[in-house]
């Protein structure tokens, strides 16, 4: 079976690298955008009480929608292709990162903040040198979970013509072709594992102070 998978990939190298590229691009762009969007939103929630309830409600509602639903909903709104897939994945990954950023900031020991203010640090210094580094381990956990969801979820982009490794899987399902299924799913699993481990290492480094 594995042999057949490798054989397929080597005979259809162009098609495979195209799909792989699209998949990585789709997941990568999604993650960059989602971080740029969700982290500030989470900080806003933690800092400004008036934003807390509305944003958290939307985010929690979003969290319960399966990504397949999001992708299908994009069809009438944005048509088919890369963009609607990207928007759907974005919406899928936002909640976990907003929630984790929010908790990261909210969980900081009030005594630490009190002494930071009391010793005369400016708001800006406290934010960048104290709050942000202390919230970072939890934010990274959110990013880790979000990234895995996006890499796996990007497979569904294939249903609305978004391309990516999902094309092989959808094809494989349609034709009961197990080799095709594997050509799509093994690389997805591999990418997910690699990303997860790398982020775990970064996280470990950033939270080394927690281990005594």
């Amino acid at each position, binding site marked *: 079976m594995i042999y057949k998978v490798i054989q397929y990939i080597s005979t259809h190298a162009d098609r495979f690298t195209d799909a792989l590229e699209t998949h990585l691009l789709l997941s990568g762009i999604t993650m960059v955008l989602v971080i740029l969007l969700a982290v500030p939103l989470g900080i806003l929630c933690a800092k400004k009480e008036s934003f807390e309830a509305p944003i958290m409600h939307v985010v929690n509602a979003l969290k319960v929608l399966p990504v397949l639903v999001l992708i299908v909903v994009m069809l009438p709104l944005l048509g088919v292709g890369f963009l609607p897939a990207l928007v759907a994945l974005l919406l899928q990954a936002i909640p976990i990162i907003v929630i984790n950023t929010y908790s990261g900031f909210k969980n900081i020991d009030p*005594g630490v903040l009190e*002494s930071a203010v009391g010793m005369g640090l400016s708001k800006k210094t406290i934010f960048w040198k104290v709050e942000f580094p202390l919230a970072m381990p939890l934010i990274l956990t959110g990013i880790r979970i979000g990234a895995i969801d996006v890499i796996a979820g990007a497979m569904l982009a294939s249903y609305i013509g978004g391309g990516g490794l999902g094309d092989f899987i959808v094809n494989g399902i349609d034709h009961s072709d197990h080799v095709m299924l594997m050509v799509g799913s093994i690389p997805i699993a591999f990418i997910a594992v690699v990303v997860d481990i790398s982020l775990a290492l970064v996280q470990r480094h950033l939270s080394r*102070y927690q281990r005594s």
Partner: protein
Amino acid sequence: MAVNAIELKNVSMRFGKDSKDVVKNVSIKIPENSFVTVLGTSGSGKTTLIKLINRLYEATSGEIFFFGKNIRELNVENYRRQIGYVIQQSGLFPHMTVEQNVAVIPKMLKWDEKRTQSRVDELLKLVRLPPAVFKNRFPSQLSGGQQQRVGIARALAANPSVLLMDEPFGALDAITRQKLQAEILEIQKRFRKTILFVTHDVHEAFKLGERTVIMKGGEIQQYDTPYNILFHPANEFVRRIVSSENFVEKLRVLRASSIVHPSDGIEAPDAPSVNAGDTLLDVLDQFLTTNAAAVLVTDKQGGLLGRITWEQFRLIPGRPDSEIYRGAALRAVKGVRQG
């Protein structure tokens, strides 16, 4: 005239518009280089009082002066950097090493690397944490006592003239607490700091403070020397708060320096002596075991500060003056020593 490091004039503070005052019309002067403790139960407003001084809270009414300047007119961050602040939970930055924690303010004041380094080393030695061992540790790798030591070093980093300490030793075990109490006393004397120290521990308040503020319901009940508070309580509340201390306990918390009188220069050559930091119990011990007429009080270097005569113990109200008492006191002292 002594300079006042901190002065509060009719300061009141309430949190909500309709709530009652947490601090009520407090006026107080803290002279430069003095060690003042603030004693009160929870909810007495003692922590609020301290936070009003470093402007973590703003007074609802009244004025606060820092070396004569109204603190509202000072840049709040610059002002806070002139005041060391130590709290019970240590408040160390958990993601920074000991060295980075202590260097926070020097870095902010843009000291060069060399000056910052030597200051960090100097301070860690001062709080008895060998730099080579502790510099690169994270707070989670320290015991509670060590964390508080770093907290003190951090507060001293930019050499502030005033230290505000909010129950800094409240969470420590008795032995560690006693060690740190002795060290903060020494630091205060050596570097001539003005310290305002909040505690709910009567013993700690009297052991450390040259003067103690007793608070209840946001109001000052008495601001006086430990000696006067113990033996001349201003009201029923103060009497109650110190009444748990029996006579021997009272002597145990008072320092010899609290009732020392100037020497008339004709001391007996064999007169026993105690250190200024020793307690009145030590003084009594000397009287009871030597039969001397006066006990000399010396400073750390052995210089004569003055003396305490047996007669002065008679000033203490409620003490029966007889040989029977002397015997009873001796047994009590021995009991305390052994216990």
